[in-house]
């Protein structure tokens, strides 16, 4: 997997800071897991978070704060944060999705237009997360849509090209609301990608009218 498109540093910093919404965070995680350069960047931004924490001026805690935690330790309360059940790997059409999507509910493919299918990805821990999978036939354009926040698209298989370049498996497209682009799937094979956005998505034209009732967006 040759990766040539990465998230911006601003986004990797927000990922490391833990301030990204669930949808973008999961889609980015798929990319980062396969991208050594971005893993190194995230490690730097986590170290930066450590430096920021250390430089933060202290606010006095309640007088009993330490005693309270020691009492919890003595009580040997069951561990709450690591008892989460191991999530099943997510699949669609028998194809296993990256580990970032473990535990997600993948809806079945729905026909939304000629050579175009869509599936909604639900994150059980966060029903508000806005993630969709798209499967688009060779040579076809991705649905025409606008978005109010930044959109992140992870390429799972196949490839597409727009004026920002060619996007292949493992790549991530980070597109601002003010960027106009029209991705066209490359002619050799269909393209499957997973997209998440920060704001709400609005679809234009025929496809848009097809999608509104299905997704309630």
């Amino acid at each position, binding site marked *: 997997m040759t990766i040539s498109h990465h998230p911006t*540093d601003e986004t990797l910093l927000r990922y490391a800071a833990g301030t990204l919404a669930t949808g973008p965070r999961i889609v980015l995680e798929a990319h980062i897991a396969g991208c050594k350069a971005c893993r190194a960047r995230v490690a730097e931004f986590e170290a930066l978070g450590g430096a920021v924490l250390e430089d933060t001026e202290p606010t006095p805690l309640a007088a009993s704060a330490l005693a309270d935690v020691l009492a919890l330790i003595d009580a040997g309360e069951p561990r709450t944060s690591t008892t989460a059940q191991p999530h099943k790997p997510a699949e669609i059409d028998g194809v296993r999705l990256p580990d970032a999507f473990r535990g997600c509910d993948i809806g079945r493919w729905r026909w939304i237009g000629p050579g175009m299918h869509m599936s909604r990805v639900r994150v059980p821990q966060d029903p508000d997360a806005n993630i969709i999978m798209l499967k688009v036939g060779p040579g076809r354009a991705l649905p025409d849509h606008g978005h109010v926040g930044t959109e992140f698209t992870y390429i799972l298989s196949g490839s597409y090209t727009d004026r920002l370049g060619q996007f292949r498996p493992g790549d991530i497209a980070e597109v601002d609301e003010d960027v106009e682009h029209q991705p066209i799937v490359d002619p050799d094979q269909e393209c499957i990608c997973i997209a998440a956005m920060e704001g709400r998505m609005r679809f234009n034209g025929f496809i848009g009218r097809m999608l509104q009732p299905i997704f309630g967006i």
Partner: protein
Amino acid sequence: MVKADGDAFPVPPAQELARLVQAVAARGDREAFAALFRHFGPRLKTFFMRGSMSSGLAEDLVQETMLSVWRKASYYDPARAGAGTWVFTIARNLRIDHLRRQRNPADLPSDPPVMPPSLEEELIGVEREERVREALAGLSAEQQAIIRLSYYSEKSQSEIAGELGIPLGTVKSRTRLAMNRLRALLEDET
């Protein structure tokens, strides 16, 4: 018995903090834990409060974070990250969990997966800590403030713009400048 206030104690150097976490891991050393609590507890409280949390909620998350420090101490690898970085990632994950539970009260907490480091990534861990601190110190006061703000709070740039009373474009360009400078400093020292 140990005191909970941090003011009477000097700030321990990074190696000392790492040693304290290892003492907790090796023998459940309560003096070491108390020292970590005195150092990180009050800083974590400010950290959470800057992210628009009430003082009471911030205290709750400080307790949760420090409890995790006690329970997960054996997973801490000083070659991979400084103690401050490790505590930061615990606090960050708990904050993500907390915000999610707020939206979906029935949901159980879960840990985001932890990626095991490659050998090469481990080797550069310690050196990275120093490089990042130098880079942060190399930013102007205003640029440092912008970077800090992005760690404290989930506020979008437009909210920050409204709060500071400056145009959104100005916030965006200042953030971009701060990030460019930070990137240059980080790459300089590689």
